[in-house]
């Protein structure tokens, strides 16, 4: 088991390097760089910027050198923990990211937990009582939820909560609670705001998890060992939950590694629409203005999360399924 984990961790390191190179290259692909964005902004507000000054800026930011040199400088800084400065905000990137990533992680984890809590029972019930009313209802809900674009759902819910229920628009807190210390009132305020993004982000995922669970369990329920258990007198509920469900969970666990990064990237659009203080809006703005170091740091972090998530799911799989551990 330990050897398994160590091998996987060692395999992550070259993968991280590959991700960093890819991220850096993709950010550099659009024509121009941050100085071009800056020049466009200046020109729009009526300042005459001549190309000599722009080139001086490029040199100062190190944007004029070739890609390999820039990449080496960046990655050596990252390894030391220095992610560089954001050009647009003129602040160190680390300051910008940590606050936002914390909130992103909170929302994503809440969504993940709720998704599992909701989808597993419904999926199991749907399979056990195939073609019942609950099964049809959950199927219909699943297809509807997967078909609706989640940012549209976000806007509609935002409109409803604001205009009909008077909750303040967007964000995770009302203005009066934003900088206040934590209290019961602030917690309730958080819940009234946070349920919209958690619901929106969770619906498509919940729907697909229900369907997957149902399909997996249906495969298992007709196996001989279930019949054998029933013949031996096990209560139906205990039978289903102890044996076929554990097998049906395998595909679930192997995909849990993908769920976290999918949530983080999926929530980019939803967060921008709902104005949440998470990583999404900051990353989107950084990409739009080619704010190299900020965007690069975010993408590196997301890549790292994919790798860690995959590792976690591999470990969980090894724990839950002895066949994998022993093979």
């Amino acid at each position, binding site marked *: 088991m330990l050897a398994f984990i160590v091998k996987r961790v060692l395999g992550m390191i070259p993968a991280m390097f590959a991700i960093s190179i890819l991220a850096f290259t993709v950010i550099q692909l*659009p*024509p*121009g760089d941050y100085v*071009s*964005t800056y*020049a*466009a902004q200046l*020109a*729009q*507000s*009526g*300042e*005459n*910027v*001549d*190309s*000599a*000054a722009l080139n*001086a*800026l490029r040199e100062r930011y190190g944007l004029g050198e070739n890609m390999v040199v820039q990449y080496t400088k960046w990655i050596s800084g990252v390894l030391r923990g220095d992610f560089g400065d*954001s050009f*647009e*905000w*003129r*602040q*160190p990137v680390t*300051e*910008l990211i940590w*606050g*936002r990533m914390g909130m992103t992680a909170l929302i994503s984890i809440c969504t993940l937990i709720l998704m599992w809590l909701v989808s597993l029972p419904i999926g199991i019930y749907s399979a056990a009582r195939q073609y019942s009313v609950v099964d049809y209802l959950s199927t219909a809900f699943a297809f509807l939820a997967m078909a609706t674009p989640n940012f549209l759902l976000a*806007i509609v819910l*935002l*409109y409803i909560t*604001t*205009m009909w229920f*008077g909750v*303040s*628009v*967007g*964000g995770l807190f009302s*203005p009066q609670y*934003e*900088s206040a210390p934590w209290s019961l009132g602030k917690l309730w305020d958080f819940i009234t705001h946070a349920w919209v993004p958690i619901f929106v982000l969770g619906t498509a995922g919940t729907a697909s998890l229900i369907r997957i669970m149902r399909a997996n369990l249906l495969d298992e329920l007709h196996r001989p060992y279930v019949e054998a258990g029933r013949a031996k007198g096990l209560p139906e509920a205990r039978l289903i939950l102890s044996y076929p469900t554990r097998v049906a969970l395998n595909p679930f666990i192997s995909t849990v590694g993908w769920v976290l990064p999918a949530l983080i990237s999926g929530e980019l659009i939803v*967060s*921008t*629409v*709902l*104005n*949440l*203080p998470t990583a*999404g*809006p*900051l990353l*989107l*703005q*950084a990409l*739009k*203005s*080619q704010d190299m170091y900020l965007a690069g740091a975010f993408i590196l972090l997301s890549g790292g999360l994919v790798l860690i998530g995959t590792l976690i799911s591999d470990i969980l799989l090894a724990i839950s399924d002895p066949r994998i551990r022993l093979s």
Partner: protein
Amino acid sequence: MQRVRIAALAGISLFALATSAMAQDYKQAPELDALVSSGALPAVAERVGANPRVLTPVESVGKYGGTFRGGMVGGNDRNMLFTYFGYEGLLAWDADWTGEVHPNIATGYTASADSRSFTFTLREGMKWSDGSPFTADDVAFFIEDILPDEKLFPTKPGWLTVEGELPSIAVISPTEFTMSWSKPNGLFILNAASVYGVQLALLNKAYCSQFLPKYNENADAEAVAAGAAGWAEHMVAKCGVGIEAIERWRNPERPVLEAWKIVDPYVAGATRVTFERNPYYWKVDTDGNQLPYIDDLSIGVNAESQTLLLSVLAGEIDYEVRHTTNTTNLPVIAEGVEQGDYRISPRESRVGNVMTISVNLNSQDATKAPIFQNKDFRIALSHALDRQAIIDTIYLGQSTPQQVSPREGTPYYNERLATQYLEHDVEKANALLDSIGLDKRGGNGMRLAPDGSPLVVNVAAVTALGNMADAAELFVQYWQAVGVDARFNAMDRTRFYEEKTASQHDIVVWGATSGGIDVFIDPRDYFPFSTESNFAIEWAKNYIGDGGVEPPDYVKEQWALYDQIKATSVPEEQNELFQRLLEITADQFYQIGIGTAVPLYSIAKNNLGNVPDGTPTGWIHPDPGTLNTEQFYFK
């Protein structure tokens, strides 16, 4: 003896009465009373100084109290804070932008006869937000120590340089100074009253000089110790050197002259920026109440404009004019007037046109260049457009057809420039195109270049910005109908700027800029003036001395006329010279326009008082700062 004593007593008491009447009874906001009585703040008369600016409120004297709620959008919307609450220059324009310049920080100015030097008088006893005195030394600090520095100002503001020369300053007394150049700077006063003029009194010498090596030999070491790369970066981070620097809104310790000062700073990742009252603000109303009326500002940061729009509809924004108030949103905003308890306050736009179509006269393509430079080609394109249909589709009919020109009703209006080639005349367009050598058609029915090759004209517009992309798609259809193979090319703004700055574009669609008094400050649409003169960027580069291509004589004549305008500060002379310049613009027909600027609007909560209606918006005239937001109040 008795009579002398009585007379003396009478004289003294009269004198005492007189002085107390002069030391007027100023009133202050109730939230400051406790601070004054505890001794933390001096009395209000001392705080506003001996000669505060007396502002006449738009409707009535207001009440103290309340928190103003506003919203910013997107990354880095620092200019929202600037235009709303940061417009405090030596001089100011009035809300109606009549062109009259009013005293603001300065009580007045005198210009020398040759417009080379300008003397300003300041206010006696005026203070910064930390209680330290504001004097001519603060302006001198900027002119002598900050402006010439290469690290802090790599590019010098154009309005402060005359042929590359920076101003020199002579401090006559703490309340009087003179700025001068060796050659005339006729537009200086206009610029000083505009958004750009805020630069002059932005920096507090006592606070900011600690970051300069000239005044503090440890400046560099302290900067590095604080985590900055050097003293220049630390200076910018703490003092926010330029008018548009985001750092202006980041440091609560930085003294300011504005009505409110920062509490929660505008750092990246902030969700809300808050301000509180500046107790040393140097303006009072006609009743002697120290301004501002409103106690605090609470500005939310929105990732994109839809949440701000929703906030407006929910009644959570007290005043909005910057992001959501466009034609597209007008229906939903008008519908929500009752539920949101706000009103729509009309505003004017003073730009020269709703958009400009710039055919690239400096095209790098050898086949296209002579075609584009042929005026008849542009006239034909202009006649091919059905302006009324375009206006009805995109602007809901709120415009009348016009070419790119200063607005009617201003002294700068040129009728020929504004009304030539407006008719929708497809026959005339076809005839003109046939006559300039584009009569041969290819297999697809589109016209061929004179050498027989297919002539494809790319029309570029930025999709994210308003209606330009929608309009460009319509233009392309009209031009294809007269046989010009026009193709629409949607772009993002950075790539758009890269391409046009390298003069690689064929036709670009962009917004127009000046149409009122700002035609002198930014005449980019009327002759090749800057890299924003999209029709001839190479000639413009030649003008600003950044390479480029030498233009024909008529352009040089326009440059000479503009230089003459800059050399005189007499408005009548400037107008007459500008009309001569516009005659050349009309002769050459550089840009094609669509229609007059669309009426704009802003949103104000019903309980927000002293908000005038119908005033012009803009950047050079930085609405709503020009409405004097310090006299807004909650009824």
